[in-house]
């Protein structure tokens, strides 16, 4: 085990104000069980889970309430004991509504309940057992997108994982949840890595941490001091978006993930957030599914910023109340970090497995602007970490020319927000990219559906003959 400086630096990137000092020294605190949980069936990337409970049902903590619905899907478990009040559509942080189970919680009868899943000894368990456990525990990537971890850990035949990259960069401003997890749960991360190496085969491990978190680097060095095999802690320069999967792979092992639909596994890499790794350790050793996560509640409009361990489905209002409420009226509420997070319009939204932060910003921190005409300064080209031409894309989308945007490879855009961040004309470039991507995806889905329908019609014709 050794610590190295990152040998590769990607092109582009920006330096936003990090403001991490607000919550970085706050130890993880457990939220008292809220009276009501809103557990969304759409917790992650991919198909939403299928709800299998109805209003009036009594559920136990850890009970499956949403079943997997397709390959890229994760099951959902109740994160507390309680009674289902209703199952209805609720707005999620990303602005789309999905079925959600409204749970009226009751305090647990037993302070030391039996484990939800039988604990496994990872040293003796088989690969299949471990993989099944990850799936049963409903674990998905806790960094942001929420890709189902069991899918990531099970590479398709012919592809092998050579590098396991642990993402501890946490390059988003304000957020300190991963940082606290690395400090306080370093031993769990260590166990998680061993389990993942058992599942993926004895691959090399790279733990990527940004330079501005020396305490986390020390904690990791201590935890991994005696680990076998090719393990390195890679110190990354402070640069946004260092935490992006693709850039992390480049920064640690120097490989470039091709355009979508290629995945990191195509270049022999698996990237996991440190929180996810700790969750895997808990799922295997303690039999504890992924029911709660650490969320940073920060911003200058919060009384005391905190890192809170809260069951998934906790309403934002409960989180804010636990932090002592609002210091002043927030001008903007962001679910996630300031760069990639989603602005929400009320605190009546609940956390999911991927909610890494909740920011309440006062009017001093929020800049109201209107998008203006591009002045062709090229600042976004320099900032774009994906080597795109955001100026051209944004202008094309503004003129409703999605085709040009597609030819300019808008689908490779990771929506990091670096282009909008520095734009002197205050153009909402990232939003233009998002819009182009949404309409391209919609068109692709329509084409797929049309092709499927045509094929079905042909099959029916053949059968009729």
């Amino acid at each position, binding site marked *: 085990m050794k610590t190295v400086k990152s040998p590769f630096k990607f092109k582009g990137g920006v330096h936003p104000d990090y403001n991490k000092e607000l919550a970085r020294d706050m130890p993880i605190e457990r939220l008292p069980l809220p009276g009501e949980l809103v557990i969304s069936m759409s917790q992650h990337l991919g198909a939403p889970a299928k709800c299998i409970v109805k209003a009036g049902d009594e559920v136990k903590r850890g009970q499956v309430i949403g079943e997997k619905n397709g390959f890229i899907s994760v099951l959902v478990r109740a994160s507390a004991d309680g009674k289902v009040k209703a199952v209805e559509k609720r707005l999620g942080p990303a602005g789309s509504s999905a079925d959600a189970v409204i749970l009226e919680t009751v305090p647990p009868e037993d302070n030391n309940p039996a484990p939800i899943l039988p604990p496994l000894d990872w040293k003796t368990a088989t690969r299949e057992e471990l993989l099944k456990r990850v799936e049963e525990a409903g674990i998905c990537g806790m960094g942001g997108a929420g890709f189902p971890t069991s899918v990531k850990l099970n590479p398709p035949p012919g592809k092998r994982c050579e590098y396991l990259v642990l993402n501890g960069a946490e390059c988003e401003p304000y957020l300190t949840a991963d940082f606290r997890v690395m400090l306080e749960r370093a031993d769990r991360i260590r166990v998680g890595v061993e389990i993942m190496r058992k599942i993926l085969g004895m691959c090399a491990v790279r733990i990527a941490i940004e330079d501005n978190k020396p305490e986390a680097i020390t904690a990791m060095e201590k935890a991994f001091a005696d680990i076998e095999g090719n393990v390195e802690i890679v110190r990354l320069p402070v640069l946004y978006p260092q935490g992006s999967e693709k850039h992390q792979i480049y920064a640690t092992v120097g490989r470039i993930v091709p355009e979508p639909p290629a995945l990191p596994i195509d270049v022999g890499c698996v990237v996991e957030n440190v929180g996810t790794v700790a969750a895997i350790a808990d799922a295997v050793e303690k039999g504890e599914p992924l029911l709660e996560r650490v969320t940073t509640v920060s911003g200058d409009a919060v009384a005391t910023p905190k890192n809170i361990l809260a069951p998934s489905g906790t309403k934002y209002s409960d989180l804010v109340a636990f932090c002592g409420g609002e210091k002043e009226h927030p001008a903007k509420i962001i679910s996630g970090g300031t760069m990639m997070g989603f602005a929400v319009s009320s605190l009546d939204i609940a956390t999911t497995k991927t909610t890494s932060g909740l920011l309440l910003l006062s009017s001093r921190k929020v800049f109201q602007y209107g998008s203006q005409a591009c002045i062709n300064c090229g600042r976004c080209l320099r900032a774009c970490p994906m080597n795109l031409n955001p100026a051209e894309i944004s*202008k094309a989308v503004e003129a409703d020319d999605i085709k040009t945007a597609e030819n300019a490879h808008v689908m490779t855009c990771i929506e990091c927000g670096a282009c909008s961040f520095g734009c002197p004309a205050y153009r909402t470039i990232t939003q233009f990219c998002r819009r182009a991507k949404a309409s391209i995806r919609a068109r692709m889905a329509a084409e797929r559906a049309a092709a499927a329908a045509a094929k079905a019609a042909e099959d029916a014709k053949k059968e009729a003959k």
Partner: protein
Amino acid sequence: MSYYLMILVGAVLVNNFVLSRFLGCCPFLGVSKKTETALGMSGAVVFVMTIASAVTWMLDHWLLTPNNLGYIHTLAFILVIAALVQFIDIAMKRFLPPLHAALGIFLPLITTNCAVLGAAEINCKQGTGFFEAVFFSFAAAIGFGFALVIFSGIREKLAHANPPRCFRGIALALVTGGLLSLAFMGFSGLVKLPY
């Protein structure tokens, strides 16, 4: 060889059909909205112009000039070129469907195109030999395509711009065409040729 190279440079850059001689302005403005269609149109023009100049050269040298009928060649050329384009359209549809799919919709546009007629006229005025005449027409058509593709590229960018209301659409295209023409003036004196 260098003579043919001079013809090429002269016809493409110095005396560009569209930007210096102002021939073929109609398709230059009409089909320059997209680079794809501009390329298709250029292909069709190269094809028709080369064949048309060969046919008109033969007509001029073997039928009209021997009979002292030089004064009706414009009339005869129009007739022959129009019939020829129609014939190519029909034949291409039958024998070369993929090429017809790519160029077909532009062929009728060329039927009475002044660039095609202009090339034939210039050839018979200069009294050049057959191969020179055909090569000149070919080069002139390449020049036409060159200008068209450059212009369409600019217009694609202009489509994303947000100009004042009075400039929108064809007005801005005309201004751009004028500027492009000015730019091509810079090539004058590059080679000295009768064309």
